[in-house]
């Protein structure tokens, strides 16, 4: 059995495209990835589709007009972790020998929803009482500021950093430069989170990767997947520590063990910065620093492009936006491009090892419903 590798990547612009459909966006990313891999649609034995917002059968709806050979389509909904979970499932099939070449894609079109926070289950206990994702993270931020004495300006600095990165990313069409003062002066969403501390709520996009155990015919060097881990939230009925990011810490421990590396070995990270506080919590959960030290790590410049361990060189969710089905796959595309030395103006020089982290889902009783982490290298 040959090791499965990423042999082609594709991504659309991330922006507002109300005149397009999620199917058209997915097709664009798929064709991009196929072209990058040097393969034809008929070479693909199975398709894995991550989609969180669209109607049923998103994979088949997207693939219909691409004239596949009728191979299996697996539709995977794990909220914001859908795309990365689809990659994990595809890798399992390749490693088992079920398939030799598959394609994973993820997409969502939020401009069809009309704005506002991502819709959550109406039957959930917390959601019935007014919970929305920004509020969950705002409560984490409030507690973090209380426990560690962090100033709200530190939250704003995450928004500034990631938008600086996003300005270098041609697909981040929604990104504009901003200042700490502008971030703090923007409209309150859920205190202490202001509008510019939240990922844009209405952004569409798609991303795709081709995975194969066969020798690559792609335009760029194939990328190895050293770790692929998906975990689900533990039901915590006691006093859950809301600033621990337990599911991410647990998934990261498993991924580091699987890859045989540690956080000190990483060249770059793409993490789930849906809100400014998220990125700070994930610095700690991913082992970049000790608990309570995230503000100092940010202030040191280590996580900025040019620093020791750039986080979200793509601009992250805050700069690009967050079509949830696409995000996990888009993070993987970004890391591949850095490893392959084709990330343009935002290239992390000498990138050898990259990690992607995406969580998913707000339901009561668990930190998050899902978390997916991948560690990639050439």
């Amino acid at each position, binding site marked *: 059995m040959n090791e499965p590798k990423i042999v082609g990547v594709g991504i659309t612009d991330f922006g507002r495209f109300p005149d397009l459909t999620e199917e058209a966006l997915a097709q664009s990313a798929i064709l991009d990835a196929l072209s990058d891999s040097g393969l034809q649609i008929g070479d693909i034995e199975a398709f894995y589709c991550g989609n969180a917002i669209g109607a049923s059968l998103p994979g088949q709806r997207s693939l219909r007009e691409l004239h596949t050979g009728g191979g299996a389509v697996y539709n995977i909904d794990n909220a914001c972790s859908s795309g990365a979970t689809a990659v994990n499932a595809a890798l399992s099939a390749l490693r088992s020998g079920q398939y030799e070449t598959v394609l994973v894609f993820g997409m969502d079109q939020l401009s069809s929803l009309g704005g506002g926070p991502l819709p959550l289950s109406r039957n959930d*206990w*917390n959601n*019935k*009482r*007014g*919970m*929305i994702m*920004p*509020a969950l993270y*705002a*409560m*984490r931020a*409030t*507690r973090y500021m*209380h426990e560690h004495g962090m100033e709200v300006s530190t939250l704003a600095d995450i928004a500034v950093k990631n938008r600086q990165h996003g300005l270098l990313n041609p697909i981040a069409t929604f990104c504009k430069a901003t200042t700490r003062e502008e971030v703090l002066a923007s*409209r*309150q*969403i*859920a*205190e*202490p*989170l202001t509008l510019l501390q939240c990922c844009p709520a209405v952004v569409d996009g798609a991303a795709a990767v081709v995975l194969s155990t066969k020798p690559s015919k792609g335009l760029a060097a194939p990328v190895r997947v050293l770790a692929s881990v998906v975990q689900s939230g533990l039901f915590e*009925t*006691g*006093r*859950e520590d*809301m600033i621990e990011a337990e599911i991410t810490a647990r998934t990261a421990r498993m991924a580091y063990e699987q890859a045989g590396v540690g956080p000190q070995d990483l060249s770059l990270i793409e993490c789930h910065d849906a809100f400014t506080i998220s990125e700070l919590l994930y610095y700690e959960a991913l082992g970049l620093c000790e608990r309570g030290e995230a503000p100092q790590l940010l202030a040191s410049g280590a996580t900025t492009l040019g620093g020791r361990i750039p986080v979200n060189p793509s601009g992250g969710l805050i700069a690009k936006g967050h079509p949830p089905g696409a995000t996990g796959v888009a993070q993987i595309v970004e890391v591949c491009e850095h490893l392959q030395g084709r990330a343009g103006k935002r290239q992390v020089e000498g990138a050898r090892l990259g990690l992607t982290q995406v969580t998913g889902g707000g339901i*009561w*009783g668990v930190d998050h419903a899902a978390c997916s982490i991948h560690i990639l290298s050439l």
Partner: protein
Amino acid sequence: MKLSKRTEPHFRVTESGMLLIATRTASHPQLQFPPLDYVHGDDTVEEVPIGPFGQLYTYTVVHPGKDREPYGLAMVDFEPGVRAFGRLICTDGKAPAINSTMRIVPAELPDGSPDYAFGAVAGESA
């Protein structure tokens, strides 16, 4: 299949104040709030009242925009070992400080059904 739905309310009003009802079962002895909705097999459910006072763990004030009023949300710690989520009553738009003593107070869900919220005991505003 042996599956029964609990119909008991998730709060109780007593002379000492409003209480929330947590549950635990023989198979899962850790207290949980919200209480169990369904009971499988012959598992027995114990109801444990919590409150009426707790400590504010964290909070936020949500600003929905478009002519909709801001509202507070909170996590409040109760003995023995329960952290409960609910609406937070803000006085003059101000949330209480973390660790403030909170009281469970009557409230309504958006559909008008009776529910609970958390309000600071007098003198605990930030």
